[in-house]
């Protein structure tokens, strides 16, 4: 198979999974997510996403 992994989709999927778990914990009242947490959390997620997508891909042919 000659398919290329799309890192943006991979990172976005990971972000959705983490965000979904955080929102789920809030909905089940395991952990109370406060409104003023959202902006710093969004900045952290955005930063991680930028670093992850900008990381140079490993060349598997060598």
């Amino acid at each position, binding site marked *: 198979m000659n398919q290329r992994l799309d890192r943006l*989709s991979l990172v976005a999927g990971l972000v*959705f999974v983490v965000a979904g778990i955080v*929102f789920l914990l809030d909905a089940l009242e395991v952990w109370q997510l406060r409104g003023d947490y959202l902006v710093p959390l969004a900045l952290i997620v955005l930063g991680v996403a930028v670093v992850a997508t900008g990381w140079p891909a490993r060349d598997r042919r060598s």
Partner: protein
Amino acid sequence: MSTEPLEPAPAPPPTRHGPAAATVLAGALLVLVGVGWLLDANGVAVPWRAVLPAALVAVGLATMAGAVRGRQHGLMALGLALTIVLAVAVATDWDLEPTVAGGVGERVREPVTTADLREYRLAVGTLTVDLGGLQVPEGTTVVRARVGIGELVARAPAGVALRVDGRAGVGQVRALDRDENGLGNRLDARTDDFDTATRRLVLELRAGIGEVRVERP
């Protein structure tokens, strides 16, 4: 006469035997949300606050699984939309319940006995829950009221131990000489005698955007 070597024919695109798993999941999620919406419209309590995060996790897993097939534009858009809805719900303390059911305008409710009590709702406007004449029995009596956008005023009866759990997504909560302003406000206050009193009243008051206010004589 010269002959040129034939170039190898390009490889045919891989044959797809069916829709991608990610596509199936996206469709299934849309169907589930639609079914939930229909149930909700018919009065069935759908736990949206737990359903939507679970859907977001599923979308994330499908997006990661589909990453090997290329960019997943549709799933990423769906995941982003779900994330925005959930983030707004948290920021405004909107619990994704149908507050529209309460209507629009100005409402005054004056329950006298606990049998008159129910969960009071108003989508947009001013809701006043006047508990001044309420006969509070021994034990703990809970009164719940919710306004989507507007003002929620609760008038507490005299001589009853009181606890207020007030929340406003955007706006103000004022009760028992305390005041909270801004975004995602939560105010949990009680009178000094609340833990020892025989007759206790708990007010659970919510406003998405607006003001929650508790008045005492």
